[in-house]
């Protein structure tokens, strides 16, 4: 009798899925591209929280960043639309089916140039949606032109210096009404993962601006969006610890140093101070800190702002809880009497 060794038990998450169920197609982005690291973090975050992949819808516009949704959550519907207009497509889709979890990936061209208007109006509506900006300050697919997030004086490979000031996508998000605003660095695995998990459970618009270096066109000396620059200028506001509702909070860190923020599904975001005296529930503090950091040449990362109380777009619209998309005919076609009533008034 021969004995076959039992295969090692497969690791699954709380809904019984392997991490493989959260992966996407093989990336076609450049080796070392920050965007790939972000895709990895997205995969981990959804896997670890046990989100059902086919209850998620992915959106993007045009550009290198917009290819990303193909590289994670292959079991989720995806929509790669037109340049800069992802917010409108996502808004429509979320209105059609509010039970879905929506995630959009854009770049700095999409968000800060051609799609600036759509970005700002998305923020204003506080749509429940995760909006990730893969921000590298440069147009990759068209081979290395400045984007509108490139810092003043930052240099292209050719040596040309940028002579216009950048848009700060986080400042815009704060001013226009997003209820979760964060900045991170594609190289900071721990922080980015905590931010993504918070965004997943947040009820409202969650913006994460991730500095994601372009190894091909913007990773040289003189660039302010390079790996080297980020390693030197990344100024972490705090240390983050995301505790999902299905796990107990461990009490390793003594009370007092920790600020805990209760999230919509019962999960907790634990924020440990790192030198900065920073209150992420105060919008004014956030705007001031961003402004000061810009002057000092620092890149502030972490949770810039969180507001868990503001009504979402669906609340404002007083929408039905069930998906509008699949309401039965009896609920979307008024009865004969209604038409009769309308006709009587017009006769």
């Amino acid at each position: 009798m021969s004995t076959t060794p039992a295969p090692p038990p497969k690791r699954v998450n709380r809904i019984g899925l392997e991490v493989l169920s959260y992966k996407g197609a093989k990336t076609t982005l450049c080796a070392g591209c920050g965007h790939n690291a972000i895709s990895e973090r997205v995969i981990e975050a959804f896997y670890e929280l046990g989100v059902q992949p086919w209850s998620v819808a992915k959106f993007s516009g045009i550009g290198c960043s917009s290819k990303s949704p193909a590289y994670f959550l292959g079991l989720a519907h995806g929509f790669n639309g037109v340049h800069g207009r992802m917010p409108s497509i996502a808004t429509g889709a979320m209105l059609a089916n509010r039970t879905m979890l929506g995630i959009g990936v854009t770049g700095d061209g999409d968000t800060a140039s051609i799609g600036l208007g759509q970005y700002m109006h998305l923020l204003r509506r506080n749509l429940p949606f995760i909006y990730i900006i893969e921000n590298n300050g440069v147009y990759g697919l068209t081979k290395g032109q400045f984007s509108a997030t490139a810092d003043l004086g930052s240099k292209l490979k050719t040596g040309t210096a940028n002579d216009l000031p950048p848009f700060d996508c986080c400042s815009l998000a704060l001013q226009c009404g997003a209820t979760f605003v964060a900045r991170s660095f594609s190289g900071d695995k721990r922080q980015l993962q905590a931010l993504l998990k918070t965004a997943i459970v947040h009820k409202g618009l969650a913006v994460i601006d991730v500095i994601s270096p372009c190894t091909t066109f913007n990773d040289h000396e003189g660039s302010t969006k390079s790996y080297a620059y980020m390693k030197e200028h990344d100024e972490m506001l705090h240390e983050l610890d995301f505790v999902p509702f299905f796990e107990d909070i461990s009490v390793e860190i003594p009370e007092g140093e920790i600020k805990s923020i209760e999230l919509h599904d019962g999960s907790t975001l634990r924020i440990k101070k790192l030198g900065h005296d920073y209150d992420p529930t105060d919008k004014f503090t956030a705007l001031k800190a961003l402004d000061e950091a810009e002057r000092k040449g620092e890149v502030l990362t972490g949770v810039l702002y969180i507001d868990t109380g503001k009504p979402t777009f669906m609340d404002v619209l007083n929408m039905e809880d069930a998906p509008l998309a699949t309401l039965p005919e009896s609920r979307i076609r008024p009865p004969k009497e209604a038409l009769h009533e309308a006709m009587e008034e017009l006769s």
Partner: protein
Amino acid sequence: MSTIEASPAAQRSGEFQQPVVNDFSIQVATVNGSGSQTANSVLMRAIFQMGVPVSGKNMFPSNIQGLPTWFTIRASKHGYIGRKKEIDFLVAMNPETAREDVMKLESGAAVVYDEPLKLDALRSDLHFYPVPFDKLVGPVCPEAKLRKLVRNMIYDGVVANLLSIEMEEIHQALIKQFGKRKAKAADLNWGAAKAGYDFAEKNLAKTDPFRVERMNATAGKIIIDGNSAAALGCVFGGVTVVTWYPITPSSSLVESMMGYLKRFRIDRETGKATYAVVQAEDELSAIGMVLGAAWAGARSVTSTAGPGISLMSEFIGLAYYAEIPAVIFDVQRVGPSTGLPTRTAQGDIISTALLSHGDTRHPLFFPCSPEECFSMAVDAFDFAEHFQTPVFVMTDLDLGMNNWMADRFEYPFKPIKRGKVLTAVDLERLGGFARYKDVDGDGIGYRTLPGTNHPQAAYFTRGSGHNEKAQYTEREDDYVNNLDRVARKFETMRSFVPKPQVENNSKARIGFVCFGTSHHSVGESRDQLKNEYGVETSYFRLKAYPFTQELTDFIHRHERVYVIEQNRDAQILGLMRLELTAQDIAKLRSVRYYGGLPLDARTVTDDIVRQEGL
């Protein structure tokens, strides 16, 4: 008080004049923003309530206050509701235009005018009725700031008196207009109308031949504008996501829809809306939301005009190629560019049919009446979901914004059709699917909706090259196969689009082809040609693009076919040229009008007479 002598025209034409009953047009010339809309609607409605077929056309400027505006009411015992070019009865309230308005009239017309304008000195071949509006308004409207608005209601009374419109109908129309909630406003206006009537009764001697007499030709009919009709069509078509950006002349479509949705589509139990309406930041966003919503399974619609259509161009290419349903109303106005925003045209035909870059082609529906605005709105949703493509419902300012007499709308009893959508149960049975595969040979693939509870439901939608399985590809064969299949879908549409209205006349050697609002004037023109020139015609009204076999059959039956449209470049004829044979094309002639006013029958008749050498 001065009494009026019979005008020289009446004296010249002798004491007896043949009365002209229920067959004339009234034009009211006012200043924009002076509140004349109420007075005009009441006048139109009163004639309608007397059973006389009536139509109203508002010719207004792109302005809130101060520029001239004209409202034309046509009463027609024959049921003609197209615009009548000749004005028979003028109400001249606007000092700016009064002179020109009077000089343009045909001999024998009547003029009610504000006395200080002294218009009677201008011509001796018209019937003049001076009315001291300012003197009359004071006693009936003590509140000085309301006088400007109430003043207009005085002419309703004067006109009612002169044209024998029953005052009780004016009263009823006023009550209808203001509703029960604004009874006080209705009373104030009623007082003004009575003052006008009494003044005319005592001081004006009727010399013109025009008169309204009670008929029974409007029983069971309604008065409605095309935009409201389309709005109702969407509500009863099961719309769930509505997006828009305000633009004349389409804004009132969604505004009206919001009113009906609030009334008919809030769930009684939960108090929640079974729809979402979003005023977008621009037309780009409006169409983007429509596509996102439709992709996720909503019945979604947006409404716009030419400039909005131009902006939507890129997204429409995406919808065509990624195969996403959408219903888009284009309430056409005069272009190019800003053009004449408050004037009507059929000028977006070619640009919309072929909207966006690359090889694209889109179905267009052409409603001609409020009834069709309603029914085509209902049908457009089913059509868009069946073919998974944008459908444009091409109305125009004349249809959308003017009030039309119409039959009551028929309730859509046919069940709503959602097209080829696979559910989780289907996926379990099939073990997967290929989004862009032509399974049924009609060019239409099967889709799944995001959120479908099945691990095999997902596919990736993209505007870049894709194969049957919706995977990214740049392969030549994949691209060609896919684009050919989408073209096949367009061919399939030919047997699904609304069928044309065809009236073949065995005595006719020539045929007329038109679409949309031209219908009303073309019908009248056919009568003019028959009555005045003895020329018989056949008739073909297109209700949709792509064209159907019926069009070719119609051309074959006739020696010459006149294609009548409201644009400069013969756009619908241009689309015909793309697919008809050279022989058929050689039979086509073009009649075009593009001055911005609704097409009138005389313009058509005159052009046919010229081209036919009659």
